[in-house]
């Protein structure tokens, strides 16, 4: 077995558990810690059964032994409110933090667009934007790498069952953070994000629409090719990332209609919105791990 980089997952909820399932298959990441706050959390119990060390004392419960245990990468799947404190603590012990919360204290990372930049910059904290951002920003970037995009807008429709209490209590954070990601990572001059929650049963698979307005007349052939290439990139870590229709060209409007089905590791398949977050988080960690294993990068206490 080749050498793996050890990782900790903070937050044993649905996201953290799905991430654990994926990480257990990784060739370069070895999950060794699951951190929670509820002693009888089923997520902690499951992690224990799978051989991980666990604590219900929060990050403080892992800190004393994390360096000894060789943890170099942490994932935060808790909430924006506690993320900053978590990040400080693990950074101080030389581990890179991959932020799956909407806290966004580190640079945004959308793997097929700018992961290489984040790794090259040796960022000790990277933020995974939002589920809608992971599903749509690659396509805004696919258009903007062909020609200038004056405005990028995305509509993410998720099933009611896949929208957790955190998202619901602070839905503005989704729209703001996603819009910002459309600009900073997607390359649109102005971004807008819309989220719709649909309670239909059986639950609908996540749908995403991307509308771009180009500055000049769109180069249809080049944009279509670029979009198809980008979809293939995302499919490497989310196989259920499917182009339903488009790109449709209407004047300077370019519209792309997507469906995102998850792998169904721990989360149900319709929750592609959650799956794409955990998959993107793991993909990011793997790239850091490869750099560490190749001797190009040694995370140091910051």
């Amino acid at each position, binding site marked *: 077995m080749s050498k793996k980089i050890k990782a900790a997952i903070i937050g044993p909820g649905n996201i953290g558990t799905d991430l654990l399932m994926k990480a257990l298959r990784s060739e370069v990441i070895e999950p060794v810690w699951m951190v929670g706050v509820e002693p009888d959390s089923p997520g902690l119990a499951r992690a224990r059964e799978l051989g991980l060390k666990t604590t219900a004392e929060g990050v403080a419960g892992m800190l004393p032994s994390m360096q000894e245990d060789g943890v170099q990468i942490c994932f935060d799947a808790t909430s924006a409110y506690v993320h900053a404190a978590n990040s400080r603590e693990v950074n101080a012990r030389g581990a890179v933090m991959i932020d799956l919360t909407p806290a966004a204290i580190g640079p945004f990372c959308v793997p097929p667009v700018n992961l290489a930049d984040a790794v090259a910059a040796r960022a000790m904290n990277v933020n995974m934007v939002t589920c809608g951002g992971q599903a749509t920003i690659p396509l805004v970037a696919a258009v903007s790498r062909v020609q200038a995009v004056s405005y990028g807008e995305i509509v993410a429709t998720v099933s009611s069952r896949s929208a957790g209490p955190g998202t*619901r209590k602070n839905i503005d954070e989704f729209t703001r953070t996603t819009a910002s990601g459309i600009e900073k990572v997607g390359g649109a001059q102005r971004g807008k994000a819309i989220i*719709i*929650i649909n*309670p239909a049963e059986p639950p609908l698979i996540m749908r995403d629409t991307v509308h771009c307005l180009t500055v000049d007349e769109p180069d249809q052939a080049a944009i279509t090719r670029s979009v198809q290439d980008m979809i293939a990139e995302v499919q490497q870590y989310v196989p259920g990332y499917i182009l339903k*229709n488009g790109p449709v060209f209407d004047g300077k409007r370019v519209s792309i209609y997507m469906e995102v089905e998850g792998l169904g590791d721990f989360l149900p398949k319709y929750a592609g919105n959650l799956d794409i977050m955990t998959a993107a988080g793991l993909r990011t960690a793997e790239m850091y791990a490869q750099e560490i294993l190749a001797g190009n990068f040694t995370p140091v206490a910051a």
Partner: protein
Amino acid sequence: MDLKGKKITVHDMCLRDGMHPKRHQITVEQMVDIAKAMDEAGIPLIEVTHGDGLGGASVNYGFPAASDEEYLTAVCKEMKNTKVSALLLPGIGTVDHLKMAVDCGISTIRVATHCTEADVSEQHLTMASKIDGLDRVGFLMMAHMIEPEELLAQLKLMEGYGANCVYITDSAGYMLPDDVTARVALARAELKPETELGFHGHHNLAMGIANSLAAVEAGANRIDGSLAGLGAGAGNTPLEVFIAVCERMGVETGVDLFKAMDIAEDKIVPMMDHMVRVDRDALTLGYAGVYSSFLLFAKRSAQKYGLSSRDILVELGRRRTVGGQEDMIEDLALDMARQRGAL
């Protein structure tokens, strides 16, 4: 039905829901002119926003002729007695928009969610509760899709977040009077007595007036409508007609009926791009339970891809789409066109 002596507040929708049939192109000048006439006619409350609420300006819903800020600023400063409301759909608009609208001079914020998703309004209603004197309305859309008991639980959530008034909204114009009675009566019995109750109708099955009367009888005291019915689908409850019926039944609205009729006839109807009426597609909305603002999007996609707009609308109903899913319409039309070999 005996409603004699009841006092209600009518709320005009021309300058918000009416933005849908106008493709959000009502000008600031038109808004100010109409709002001043409504003030003169004694209409107590009017809504002014993009059709899809604050922040609705988008490719998905349409870019308006002016910004929410421009519309609200211009209208609010001209009002003598009439108060102005703004609509906000969490997921589209944010608390930043809410604060902006308050600074423009609105007196009422209406926070709207799909009928099963009231908890996404917590952030906005809680924030609104901290603003002195702001009238806070929780607005549950597509209320025909769930049973009265389930709807009550969602209304209670909004009441708990600080709404002093909650609305049962028939966004699809699907409800019949008994549906309205069941929902409003249960809410009236179970919500706090001081919480006001409202009903927002669409006229797709020509039930706007009958449903609004049923709502008043069951305990609602705020009723939405729009003069000449300018609104999505077959329009809202035609307000001048409702006011006339209220006068006949002894319900007090405080509105000058003839002035309201004149605004409808002389200002609103001439402004319409198409006659807002129960045409085949609007009737389909009501029959199939589809969000009323999908109407023009379905007509446009039907024309572009050589399909029947009725077929598109029926399929949108079958898939249980909710308000805001306008992006689904072109996607669905492309699927249908492909299936029929037209692409």
